[in-house]
């Protein structure tokens, strides 16, 4: 069967019931899309089908055929999508594993809603789990990419006690 991924055509021989996630990773070597739960609960496998965010672990190949599939590798040439730039500016990742999925969900959001409210962001990103707790910086990076603000993710400060340090 033929799949159009990142504007390239791929011919693969696979079970039409195989989830797109495993075709991308195991058959085509596109490993930026990650496995996290296999049940559409965590968002690590988020890709775009015709620009809409979809969970690749819940998308059989038969359903992906005929759509324009975009993975993290194809989001922007040189990986310099405004979200990817904002992700770097805010030092968003810790372990980084969930971040391709986060960025794919965020990019689909901004395509559809270029100036999202805080509630819009929380709703759109609710399907993407981060166990490291980078959510505050994800919010800040999305807002920056949307041109909404340049504020830091979390207020940080150095506290100097009055007494001498030990």
């Amino acid at each position, binding site marked *: 069967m033929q799949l159009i991924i990142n504007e390239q055509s791929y011919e693969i021989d696979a079970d039409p019931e195989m989830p797109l996630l495993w075709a991308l990773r195991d058959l085509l070597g596109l490993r930026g899309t990650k496995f996290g739960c296999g049940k559409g609960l965590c968002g690590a496998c988020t890709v775009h089908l015709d620009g809409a965010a979809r969970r690749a672990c819940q998308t059989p190949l038969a359903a992906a055929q005929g759509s324009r599939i975009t993975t993290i590798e194809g989001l922007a040439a040189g*990986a310099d999508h405004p979200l990817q730039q904002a992700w770097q500016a805010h030092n968003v990742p810790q372990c980084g594993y969930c971040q391709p999925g986060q960025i794919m969900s965020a990019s689909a959001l901004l395509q559809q809603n270029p100036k999202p409210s805080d509630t819009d962001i929380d709703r759109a990103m609710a399907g993407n789990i981060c166990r*490291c707790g980078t*959510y505050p910086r994800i*919010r800040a990076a999305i807002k920056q990419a949307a041109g909404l603000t340049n504020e830091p993710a*979390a207020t940080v400060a150095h506290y100097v006690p009055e007494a001498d340090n030990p």
Partner: protein
Amino acid sequence: MKSIVKLSRRQFLQRTGISSAGLLLGTSIPGKALGAVLDTAAGSQLNLFVSIDESGLVEIIAHRSEMGTGIRTSLPQVVADEMEANWDRVKVIQGLANADYGSQNTDGSRSVRDFYQVMRQMGATARTLLEQAAASIWGVPVSECRAREHQVFHDSGRSLDYAQLASHAARLPLPDLTTLRLKPASDFRYIGTAIPMVDLADMVSGSATYGIDVALPGMLYASIERSPVMGGRPKTYNDKAARDSTGVVDVIEITGSQVPAFNPIAGIAVIANNTWAALQGRAKLQPQWESSAHQDYDSKVALQELAAAVKSSGEVVRQRGDTTGALAVGTRRLEAVYTTPFLAHAPMEPPVATARVDASSCEIWACTQTPQVTQREVARALGLPPAAVTVHVTLLGGGFGRKSKPDFAIEAALLARGTGRPVQVCWSREDDIRHDYFHACSAQYFSASFDNTGTVNALLARAAAPSIGSVFGSSDNLLSHGELGQGFASMPFATPNLQIERVPAPAHMRIGWLRSVYNIPFAFGVGSFVDELAHAAGREPASFWLDLIGPDRELDFTSEGFKFSNYGRSLTDYPWSTARLKGVINALTNSLPWGEELPAGQGWGLSAHRSFLSYVAVASKVEVIDGKLSVLEMHCVIDCGTVVNPDRLHSQLEGALIFGLSLALMGEISFAGGVSEQSNFHDYPVARIGQTPAHIQTHIVTSNAPPAGVGEPGVPPVAPSIANAIFAASGQRLRQLPLNRYLRV
């Protein structure tokens, strides 16, 4: 005895698998006694490597595992600073498993504190050699030569780049460590600055390589159906149906072990040409399992039993004064029992490892927190000498302690040997949650009395929780002193009478260490009870904490009968300072409108805890309206001594606050019939972006004290701060985690 050794190119290749000309440098210092259960004498020497090639590129080995703390950046930035390398001309290379590095066990929040000084020496030695090389080339005294940003300058203005100096420097004798000059802190260029993670661009582009991303030619994929109950093994299964499934290449049984330790669980592995085919084949196994002694375990019943058991006397582990006598005559008495459930690590990348095995050697690629333990255990499982096992460490998609256990690497090795081909074993999410090394549940009892001046004059505390020792064959069902020292037996209060006891709790599942370990339940119990005492006394909680902690002093536990392990460090080097704990409480309350008048249904709560040698205070502001809990703000202050990378510290604190919020609000693993009742994120929920407070503030106390832990200390005070805030907001005192037992979250 400290010494620095030069490495031959052959030795360098052995450690890294990369070739480089120019200066190769290693250093060897004596290791320290390490507190973790499985550190062995093999970690007694430390060798670190800096190489400079002909182009002047400085390659620095990262020997600790990267699971999101930024350690692949922090320790190299220390080396680069001392050696006056330009960070733009530095490349970080992950070290293989090798005992010469010293401990590579990336757990216990100790990478910086254990290696900060060594890294400085590494960098300073390289700088010294480069200056000496320049002096030699110019024929001038070395005192007239100064290294700065990848060059050595002479007083006359001449300069030479490191590229031009490296091969000469490599021929010089190593400098004496005792006369080595380290930079004064005022000259730091990188230490103390927010250098971005070296892997940042790769993580954001999707090109970073995690354990699951390893791909070898001819590699097969395995999925393993494991005994649901600890101690079980396969009785019957449909081998043929699995083998006939499309893409399945083999079906291999894995033998379990009497003592779990790091051994694989008994099960049936289905090996196929791709992950999907392996999962499909596995689904056809229809396995039946032999019975097990643990198959009747019901955690709801067990926790009730523990909650009852802690109300009766246990074994005393620490004692001051006459607590039972004082409680009997105290004016007012307060008692409480707290329980906390089992937890699962659930890192976003499940356990996954790849192995290639031939007759005499094995190569492992794994997202492991402990490459040397992996090397040793895989060697043992295969009957090979450890030197025959090479362990490559990939990035980790989260760890939290789960990936300290190399069971998943052993599985890959056994299957690679069994099939004669490279095999990747990937755990499904269901595997990860059902077969975790679970964080132990707990029950804690507290009893205190006030004297007639309103001061707490006696405090009794008892804890029961399955011990990690159970995994290694210990059958006394008792928390060890090391475990009790994680904030329970080591509680810092100055009450004239104090008694700490432990009560047995059996384990019917694998128990493991999860980000801050027993500090989680103990900080919840202690932090909640202190708040209960404050309110019972009609006192404002923060000042009550300060009074209860008592005067500035450095705690000593030996006179009270308790052996305090202090996270593997001496109390001389890292005293338990009550002043520093009070300091973070004061810093916290000074940083926010503590004590402000709040609308109905809102409240602030705080808690403080020392763990992994750092002092942390957390305050949470919550709203409880119509049975719905919202955490509006979270603030924390950490005193962790010297800081290498403040941005990574802030990110670890942000992450710890959310990790703590997640477990407090919704974290629960329960067992019925010996099996975890949860299996994926639908029934083991974790915090999502919408549950994260809109306002998070993290503060770092500026300090020159020796570096202390960063990755874990932010977690323990979170749950009690939220529970205390709920009390302030609603008058409800919640003593059982998770909080979604009582409130919608």
